[in-house]
């Protein structure tokens, strides 16, 4: 078999394995705040797709530059946008009836 086809099939098997891990991990009794850890296999799957199917390692440097720039600005968007909900402390104020 063509080595490139074999490489693609291996990547597909890896993707299915990661999907199975992700699916299984979703049934673990994790704390509500820790549940986004289920996204770790998804991040690995994105990396596999970009390397195997999108061939990010081949071609001119500009494609890696564009991908890195997109990822950087996405991190800035999500990071800055998450700052408020992650750092704000809600102080509950007791209400009293003023007579």
């Amino acid at each position, binding site marked *: 078999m063509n080595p490139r086809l074999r490489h693609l099939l291996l990547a597909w098997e890896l993707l299915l394995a990661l*999907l199975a891990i*992700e699916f299984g991990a*979703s049934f673990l009794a*994790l704390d*509500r705040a820790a549940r986004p850890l289920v*996204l770790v296999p998804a991040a690995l799957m994105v990396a596999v797709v970009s390397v195997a199917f999108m061939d990010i390692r081949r071609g001119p440097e500009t494609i890696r530059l564009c991908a890195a720039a997109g*990822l950087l*600005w996405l991190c800035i*968007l999500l990071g800055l946008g998450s700052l408020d909900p992650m750092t704000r402390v809600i102080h509950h104020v007791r209400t009293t009836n003023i007579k």
Partner: protein
Amino acid sequence: MSEVSSTQEFQYSSPRHQAETAISGMWLFLATEMLFFGPLFLAWIYSRHWNQQGFDAGARQTEVIVGTVNTVVLVTSSLIYSMGVTFIEGGGTRRLIQCCIGAWLLGLMFLLLKFGIEWRHDFERRLFPGSDFAIDGPLRDGARLFFVFYFLGTAVHGLHMLVGLILVGWIILRARRNEFSSSYYTPVIAVGLYWSFVDMVWIILYPLIYLVGRGA
């Protein structure tokens, strides 16, 4: 990226330069697409943070089996399209057409499962976040926010899938007219990048919709 264009426009120094510029342009477009989907993911972070219980209660109403099957379908579709790119690198136009048809059919299957079955069940179970929303009680607002995210996210992704189907269909038509060969197949690569990117977006949406809230 070893192919050489049969026609070279005047502004490029070589056919290779032309092909590399086209692929770089596609990657630049995909970088803007990442930022297009970014606010959707931010909305998920923000909404779930302030309404964890209700948001997760909404997530538990989703049809995880359909979502998982759709993930396998889309990943397989990307694999088949990538195999087509490999075949045309060796000049196999007939194999390219077969792979594109396979990828196209799997893409269509995704849309039918998502909008023909899953969305229909969601509407029947009154999960659309309107005045008739099915979930009552203290979790109602959080669950409603989840379904706003769900319907918006899947609709925007579905529109991208539709554009992808049109593009893959265009590649099939051009390949049938023998417009691609081992020396020119830049459009095949560019459409493949878009198709895999749409797959990538679903790979992120899948756990956000179906998995994170499921065991909570």
